[in-house]
C-alpha cells in the first residue's frame, strides 16, 4: 500500500479502491515529510485535495478494473503531484459512521481523534446527501473540494499513525488484485535443438506437444540467428499457474541424447539477475537470553519434575516430585488445548493449540518458540532436540505439502513440508538415534532423509518391495526392516548400515504371519518377534529371533514360545528381557537372560499373573508388571537380579504406569480419558511402597520430565556405585532431618489451626452461656445444657434387655 502511494501513477489510486476494502490510514513513510510543502496552510490544502480524491476513488468501486470511472479523471485533474501527498486516509462512505481509523493527527490524543471523527462525519453527511456510493456524484464534489477551501478532513501533518495498514486489515490486503503484465506466464526453455527454417515447423510441433500438456500456450517465440534458431525459446501460457507447472515437470525433460530441456520462469531470470554479487552480511539477530534451560538438573535434592493435566484438560501444572508432597512450580489454566509433550531431553514442554505448537522452558516456563501449524494434532521431536515434526490433517494442499512439517527448534523456521499419503502410524518419520537421519516408509519404498538439508539421502529412496515395517537402532545408524513372503521368496529381516546402505545382516524366515521389531535401548540387541504358521501344525507359533548387534556378523539365536505372547520388553540397560505369555486368566511372566556366549537362559517364570503390560525401570533391574484397565490395576513389583516379587499391590482401574527418569519412583494413574471416577495418581517407590495418593479432579495425564543422558563416564559411575554406602549415610541423615522438619511444620500448622479454632469456639461458647436464661425459659425451666443436667427430673427405669449374640465367622459378610 505504501509503495502504491509513493508511486504516483493512476494505478496506485485505483488499487486503493478495492471492492469492500476500507481505506485505513497509511503510516507515513519516514521520508514523506520531505516531499511536503513546508507552509502550514499548504499541506492542509493538499491534504484536503488528496482526501477528497480518495473519497471519489473509494466510491468509484466496486470493480477496480472499470476504467471509465472518475477516479482516473480526478487523478488527472488533481495531478500526480497531489497523490504524492501522504494524507491518503479516507474510508468508503458507507463506513463513515464507524469509529475513524486512526490517521495522522495533530496530537495523537483522544480529542484529536474525536475532532477527526467529527469532521469526517460532516463529510459523510455531505456524501449521504447525494446518492451514496455513486461515482458520478462524487466526481464534481471531489473537483469542487479540490478548488474550494473546504474544512480539512485529513489529519494534520505531524500526526503519526501508530497502526499500519497491514496490521489493520492484513488479511484483506493479502487478497488485493495484483497488477499482472502476463510476464509471469512466460517460460524460457533452454537446450532446444538449433534448427533452420526448414525444420522449424516440425520443432514447433514437437515443442507444442510437450508443453501444451501443462496448459494452453498463447504465444511462442523462437529467436533466430543466422537462419537458425538460437537454441532457446519463449513460451507464454494462459496463466502463471501453467507456467509454474511446466517448469516443475518439464525441467530436465530428455528430448534426445543431446538435448535435455532446462525450463525456467521468465521472471526468475529477472530475479536472479538482480541479485547482487556482493555478499551481504546477514543482520545479526539479537541474542535472546532464555536463561538456563537445564536449570532443573541443578536442583540440590536431585528431584525430578513432572507435568500434570487435570480438570479434563483445563489446567496444567508442573510439580517437583517430593517424597512427602508434590511441590507446585507452575500452574496455568488452558495452557494447552489437548495435551502436552516433553522434548526427549526434557528441555522443552510442548503445548498444543489450534494454531500450532508452543514450546516452553526455563525456570519460569516462558515461551521459547512457536510453530504455526493450523490444526496440529501430533508432534515428534528428533532425539537431539534440534527438530520438531508436526502433523495436521487440515493444511495439506496439492502443491504445497503442509500435512507434516519439520521445524528447526532453535530458529523456529520451517525446514520442510511433506504430504501425508497413507494412513501410517505416528510417528511417520522415524529418527535415527543421533538425529542425523530420518526415514519414512511408503508403499514399497523406504525414504531416508538427512539433516540439516532435509533432502533425500543420496537423492534417492530405497526400493524395497513389500516392506512392512522398519526401525532405527537406538545405538547406531542401523536400520532394521522386514519384508513378508512373496511366493517363493522367503520373508526376511534385513539390517542395513547407513549412510553406506550396506546390508550387514539378512535373515530369511519361512511361513511368517507377522514380525515385530524390538530394539534394546542401547542398541545392543534386536529381538524380532516372529509369528509363524509352520506346516503341519495348527495355529500360530511365536519365535523370538535375538540379534546380537555388538558381535561380528551379528549372530542370531532363537527362543521358541509355546503360548501366545501378550507383551515383550527389553531391560533398558541390560541383557534381560521379560515376556508375558498365556491366555487370561492363566498368564505367566518369564524373564530371560542373553548370555555373552549367546545362550539365552530362562531365569525365572511366575505363573498366575494379573498383568498385561511390562514396565521396566529406566535403569533396568526392576520391573513393574501391571494389569491395566480391564485387569483392575493389579501391580507387581519385581526385582530381576534375584527374581523376587518385592510387592503386590493394586491401584484400582489404573490406566497408566510411568517410571521417573531415574528409576526411583513409579507413578500409577487413573486418567479421566479412560475412566471417569477416582481420577488420581499414586506415587510408589521402585520397591512398591506407596508414598502418596494424589487425587485430582478429572486428572488426565502425568508425564515425567525426561533427563538428558548422563555426562559421567563409565568409570565414574562405577566409582559412585562403589562408594554408595558413603553416600547413603549422608542421604539417610538428610532424610531424617527433612522428616523431622516436616513433622515439626505439620505440628506447627496444626497448632495454629487449633488455636484459631479454640478462639472461635470460645466466642461461640460465650454467646451460648449468655443465652442460658432464654434456653431455660423456652424449655420450661428445665436445664438441658448437659446430658444429665436435669437428672433430677428423670424417672429412672431399669429395662432388662435380652441379648444374644450371633457370632458370624469372619468373611461371611463381605
Amino acid at each position: 500500500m505504501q509503495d502504491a502511494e509513493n508511486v504516483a501513477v493512476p494505478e496506485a489510486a485505483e488499487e486503493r479502491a478495492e471492492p469492500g476494502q476500507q481505506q485505513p490510514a497509511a503510516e507515513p513513510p519516514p521520508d514523506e515529510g520531505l516531499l511536503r510543502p513546508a507552509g502550514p496552510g499548504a499541506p492542509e490544502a493538499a491534504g484536503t485535495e488528496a482526501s477528497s480524491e480518495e473519497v471519489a476513488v473509494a466510491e468509484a468501486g466496486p470493480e477496480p478494473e472499470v476504467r471509465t470511472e472518475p477516479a482516473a479523471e480526478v487523478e488527472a485533474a488533481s495531478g500526480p503531484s497531489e497523490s504524492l501527498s501522504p494524507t491518503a486516509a479516507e474510508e468508503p462512505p458507507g463506513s463513515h459512521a464507524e469509529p475513524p481509523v486512526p490517521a495522522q493527527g495533530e496530537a495523537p490524543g483522544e480529542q484529536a481523534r474525536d475532532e477527526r471523527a467529527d469532521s469526517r462525519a460532516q463529510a459523510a453527511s455531505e456524501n449521504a446527501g447525494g446518492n451514496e456510493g455513486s461515482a458520478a456524484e462524487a466526481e464534481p464534489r471531489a473537483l469542487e473540494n479540490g478548488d474550494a477551501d473546504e474544512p480539512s478532513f485529513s489529519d494534520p501533518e505531524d500526526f503519526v499513525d501508530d497502526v499500519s495498514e497491514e496490521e489493520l486489515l492484513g488479511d484483506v490486503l493479502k487478497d488485493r488484485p495484483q497488477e499482472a503484465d502476463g510476464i509471469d506466464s512466460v517460460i524460457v526453455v533452454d537446450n532446444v535443438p538449433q534448427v533452420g527454417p526448414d525444420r522449424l515447423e516440425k520443432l514447433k510441433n514437437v515443442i507444442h506437444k510437450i508443453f501444451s500438456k501443462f496448459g494452453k500456450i498463447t504465444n511462442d517465440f523462437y529467436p533466430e540467428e543466422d537462419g537458425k534458431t538460437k537454441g532457446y525459446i519463449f513460451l507464454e501460457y494462459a496463466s502463471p499457474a501453467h507456467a509454474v507447472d511446466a517448469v516443475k515437470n518439464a525441467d530436465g525433460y530428455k528430448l534426445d541424447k543431446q538435448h535435455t530441456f532446462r525450463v525456467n520462469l521468465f521472471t526468475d531470470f529477472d530475479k536472479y539477475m538482480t541479485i547482487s554479487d556482493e555478499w551481504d552480511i546477514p543482520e545479526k539477530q539479537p541474542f535472546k537470553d532464555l536463561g538456563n534451560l537445564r536449570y532443573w538438573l541443578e536442583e540440590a535434592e536431585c528431584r525430578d519434575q513432572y507435568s500434570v493435566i487435570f480438570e479434563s484438560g483445563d489446567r496444567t501444572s508442573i510439580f517437583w516430585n517430593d517424597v512427602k508432597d508434590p511441590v507446585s512450580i507452575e500452574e496455568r489454566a488452558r495452557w494447552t488445548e489437548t495435551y502436552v509433550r516433553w522434548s526427549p531431553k526434557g528441555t522443552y514442554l510442548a503445548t498444543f493449540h489450534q494454531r500450532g505448537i508452543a514450546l516452553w522452558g526455563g525456570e519460569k516456563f516462558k515461551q521459547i518458540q512457536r510453530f504455526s501449524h493450523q490444526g496440529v494434532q501430533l508432534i515428534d521431536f528428533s532425539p537431539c532436540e534440534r527438530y520438531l515434526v508436526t502433523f495436521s490433517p487440515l493444511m495439506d494442499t496439492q502443491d504445497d505439502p503442509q500435512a507434516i512439517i519439520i521445524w528447526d527448534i532453535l530458529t523456529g523456521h520451517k525446514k520442510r513440508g511433506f504430504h501425508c499419503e497413507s494412513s501410517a502410524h505416528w510417528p511417520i518419520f522415524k529418527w535415527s538415534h543421533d538425529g542425523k537421519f530420518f526415514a519414512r516408509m511408503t508403499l514399497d519404498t523406504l525414504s531416508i532423509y538427512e539433516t540439516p538439508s532435509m533432502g533425500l539421502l543420496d537423492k534417492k529412496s530405497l526400493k524395497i518391495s513389500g516392506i512392512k515395517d522398519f526401525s532405527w537402532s537406538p545405538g547406531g545408524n542401523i536400520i532394521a526392516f522386514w519384508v513378508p513372503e512373496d511366493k517363493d521368496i522367503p520373508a526376511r529381516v534385513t539390517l542395513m548400515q547407513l549412510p553406506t546402505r550396506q546390508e550387514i545382516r539378512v535373515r530369511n524366515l519361512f511361513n511368517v504371519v507377522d514380525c515385530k521389531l524390538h530394539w534394546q535401548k542401547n542398541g545392543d540387541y534386536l529381538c524380532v518377534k516372529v509369528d509363524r504358521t509352520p506346516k503341519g501344525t495348527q495355529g500360530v507359533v511365536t519365535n523370538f529371533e535375538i540379534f546380537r548387534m555388538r558381535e561380528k556378523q551379528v549372530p542370531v539365536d532363537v527362543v521358541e514360545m509355546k503360548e501366545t505372547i501378550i507383551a515383550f520388553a527389553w531391560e533398558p540397560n541390560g541383557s534381560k528381557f521379560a515376556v508375558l505369555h498365556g491366555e487370561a486368566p492363566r498368564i505367566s511372566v518369564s524373564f530371560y537372560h542373553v548370555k555373552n556366549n549367546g545362550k539365552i537362559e530362562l531365569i525365572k517364570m511366575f505363573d498366575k499373573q494379573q498383568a498385561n503390560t511390562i514396565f521396566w525401570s529406566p535403569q533396568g533391574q526392576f520391573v513393574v508388571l501391571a494389569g491395566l484397565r480391564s485387569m483392575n490395576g493389579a501391580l507387581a513389583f519385581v526385582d530381576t537380579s534375584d527374581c523376587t516379587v518385592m510387592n503386590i499391590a493394586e491401584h484400582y482401574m489404573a490406566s497408566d504406569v510411568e517410571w521417573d527418569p531415574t528409576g526411583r519412583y513409579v507413578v500409577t494413574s487413573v486418567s479421566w480419558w479412560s475412566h471417569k471416577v477416582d481420577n488420581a495418581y499414586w506415587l510408589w517407590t521402585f520397591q512398591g511402597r506407596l508414598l502418596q495418593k494424589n487425587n485430582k479432579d478429572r486428572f488426565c495425564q502425568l508425564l515425567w520430565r525426561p533427563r538428558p543422558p548422563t555426562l559421567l563416564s563409565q568409570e565414574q559411575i562405577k566409582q559412585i556405585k562403589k562408594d554408595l554406602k558413603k553416600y547413603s549415610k549422608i542421604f539417610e541423615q538428610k532424610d531424617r532431618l527433612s522428616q523431622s522438619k516436616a513433622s515439626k511444620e505439620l505440628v506447627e500448622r496444626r497448632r495454629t489451626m487449633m488455636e484459631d479454632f479454640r478462639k472461635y469456639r470460645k466466642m461461640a461458647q460465650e454467646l451460648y452461656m449468655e443465652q442460658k436464661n432464654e434456653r431455660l425459659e423456652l424449655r420450661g425451666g428445665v436445664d438441658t445444657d448437659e446430658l444429665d443436667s436435669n437428672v433430677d427430673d428423670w424417672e429412672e427405669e431399669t429395662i432388662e434387655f435380652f441379648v444374644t449374640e450371633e457370632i458370624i465367622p469372619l468373611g461371611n459378610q463381605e
Partner: protein
Amino acid sequence: MNSRRGSGDGGAGSATYPETPPWQLRCLLLPGTRGRRPIIRKWAQSVFRSCSRCGLPRVTAGMKPILLQGHERSITQIKYNREGDLLFTVAKDPIVNVWYSVNGERLGTYMGHTGAVWCVDADWDTKHVLTGSADNSCRLWDCETGKQLALLKTNSAVRTCGFDFGGNIIMFSTDKQMGYQCFVSFFDLRDPSQIDNNEPYMKIPCNDSKITSAVWGPLGECIIAGHESGELNQYSAKSGEVLVNVKEHSRQINDIQLSRDMTMFVTASKDNTAKLFDSTTLEHQKTFRTERPVNSAALSPNYDHVVLGGGQEAMDVTTTSTRIGKFEARFFHLAFEEEFGRVKGHFGPINSVAFHPDGKSYSSGGEDGYVRIHYFDPQYFEFEFEA
C-alpha cells in the same frame, strides 16, 4: 407392606411388630421378649482400619456394630432423641421405627404413612415425634403411645421437618413438585386451630431453588435451610425474611446437623465436601473433602470430630463395583480438617449418620436399608493428633 403387619395398626405403646421378616427367621426367640428381638452381631474383624502414611485411618479398633433391620427400603434419615436412649429411623418405606439405642431393640413403629418417609424429628423432651413423607403429609405422633396426633396435608412431598428449641413450633418444607413450589410452613402447636384448619401461621415461599435440608437455628429464632443449588439461607421464624444468605457449596446440600450447643452446624453436600458453619452468622469455618458425594455429616458432642457418610450415588452404584463406591463412614478432625478414621460395613451409600448425644457411639443408615449402631472402643477416645 400391609400384609406383613401384625395386630396393631396405629403403633400402640407396647410396640407392635410386623410379621417376622425372612431375614430374622434364623434368630432365636428368647422367652419373655415381647415380639421380635433385634439381632446383635459380633464382628471378629477389625472394621476400623489402621492408618499408614498415605492418609488412611490412624486408629485401629474392633467395634461391634448393632445391625438394625427394620426397613425394607433405603434409610432416609436417622435421629437420636435428646437423651440419646432412643433412635428414630425412617426410610423409603412407610414405616417409622424407634429403637433403644443401647442394644438395638425395637421399641415400636409409627404406622400411618403411605409413602416414603423423608424426615423425622423428636422434640426436646421426647413427647412428640414429627415425620414428613412423600405421601404429601406431615404427621405428629405421640412418642410414647404411637398415636397419630395430627395430620397435615400438603401439596407435595415433605422433605424436612423439625421442632423448635422449645418444642412448641414445628416447621416443615415441601418439595417443588407437581407444579407446586417449595414452601416452608410453620405451625404453633399451642394454637390447636392452626393444625385443625391446616393453616400455618407462616408460609415462606422459596422460588429459586428448592430446600433439600433444613434445621431450626439456636433458640428457635430462625431456620437454616440448605438448597438444591448449594446455597444456605437463614430465614427468620417470625417474619420469614432471609436474614443471611451464603453460597459455599457448589451442589445440593443433602444434610444439615447442629452441634450439641447449637452454635455451629455442619452441612453435607453433593459437591463431595462437608463444611462447618457458624449458626448465627453462617460464616464458613472448615471444609472436609472426600472423593464422593456426602449425604450426611454429624458433629461429635464431646470431641472435635465430625463423621461423614456418603458414597457413590445410588443410581451409579449398579454400574460400578462396590469397591470404588467408598461406602465408608469417615471421621475427620474438626480443627485440622484431616481424616483419621474410616468405618466400613454398608453395601451402598450411607444416607444418614447421627452421633449419640453422649458421643460414645454413632449410627449410620444406608441405601442398603440397614441401620448400624457403632460403639467406639477405647482407641477412639485415646487417639489424639500430634499437635
